[in-house]
């Protein structure tokens, strides 16, 4: 995988994968493998995937994001997907794609407050 497409930053116990440009399926698989490996290596407790730059999220991408969340969960880390744009969100629900079981937040800032500061906000109740 070309690392520059989604570099992974480490911030304390949190890993931040910042997607820089459109991802091919292979890039997504690479990101998944790398993230899961690094969660294990750094004993991370949370993962944030920032997809602000993506103007399309297809079924493969949605499934991969869900898989990352489930895999990191097994390793003891929460995954939050941030930065899904209004148009992307609308297109996704039209296609019936949801990120069930995955936490989402508006942007990186919200994700950090979601993870670090308890604001009594829970997702995934449904």
């Amino acid at each position, binding site marked *: 995988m070309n690392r520059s497409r989604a570099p992974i930053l480490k911030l304390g116990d949190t890993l931040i994968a910042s997607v820089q440009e459109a991802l091919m399926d292979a890039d997504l698989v690479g990101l998944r493998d790398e993230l899961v490996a690094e969660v294990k290596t750094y004993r991370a407790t949370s993962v944030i995937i920032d997809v602000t730059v993506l103007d399309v999220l297809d079924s493969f991408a949605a499934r991969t994001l869900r898989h990352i969340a489930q895999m990191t969960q097994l390793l003891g880390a929460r995954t939050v997907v941030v930065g899904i744009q*209004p148009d992307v969100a609308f297109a996704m*629900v039209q296609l019936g794609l*949801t990120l069930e079981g995955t*936490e989402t937040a*508006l942007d990186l800032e*919200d994700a950090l407050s979601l993870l670090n500061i308890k604001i009594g906000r829970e997702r995934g109740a449904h």
Partner: protein
Amino acid sequence: MENKETLLPEKSIPSSEVSLRKAFLEFTDDDVAVLESVNEAATHYADSVIDDFYKHLLSFDETRSFFADPAVLSHVRNMQKAYFKRLTQGNYDAEYVADRIKIGRIHERIGLPVKSYFGMYCFYLRAVLKRLRDEYKEMPEKAYNIFDSLMKLTFFDIGLAIDTYIESREETIQGQEEAIRELSTPVLLLRPGLLLLPIIGLIDTRRARQLTEQLLRSVRANRAMVVVIDVTGVPSVDTKVANHLVQTVEAAGLMGAVSIVTGIAPDIAQTMVRLGIDLRRIRTVGDLQSGIEEAERLLGYSVVKNSDATSRCGKDGP
């Protein structure tokens, strides 16, 4: 009256459309020639026709009310006479068409009913027919030709005028539709991070789409974390509406906002269960108040009531 006329926006139709209309009515240059040939005779009996015309108009309450002002009456009378003469002056060109459209718009604006409009044209034609019969007793063929041409031209005029009636109504309807559309989907910021989306009226596919788009944009603009969607004003919910609702909630969820749906009426709840609509993926609470309280709880707000100036009765949210 003159001032009002200039206030009306100029409307015109393309010359190709004018030719098409004339062709459809079989209105040809021959007709123009026939009409021009009776100009003199028409001028001669114009006054008597117009007299009869207004006598008829003023003998009905409904149409009389439009001419209560004597100044207006004398003005429109002159206009009417000019129009009557104009009918036999040839040159039925773009200017003539623009004039007809303008007159139609004026009549539409003052609210002259279409039935009166038609009625007066009918009266017009009959008044002329009567005079033609007397004038050309010996030449019924000629009288027939004149009336034939005149009828084509007046129907051409009627077509133009009625189109302006319809067009004006369409414009009104369109404007109202737009107003309703804009009014119908307000997204209100209730507290920092808390949006309220009251839905009133029927939800169709187009509106659902617009609603969702507006909500998503507001979520981003206001950094909302919780959205309360109140459906008290939605008269009925079927499978389609429920799906729209689920989509809206899920789309907001993808952007990190939790949605709470409130205000589902008892009979709607019954219908939904009977239809087998599954709303388990949506958080619902009974009424708007509970919805706001739930949202405040999620956001960590607590509402404290000030019972009076001196003593405070601390009361956390439920």
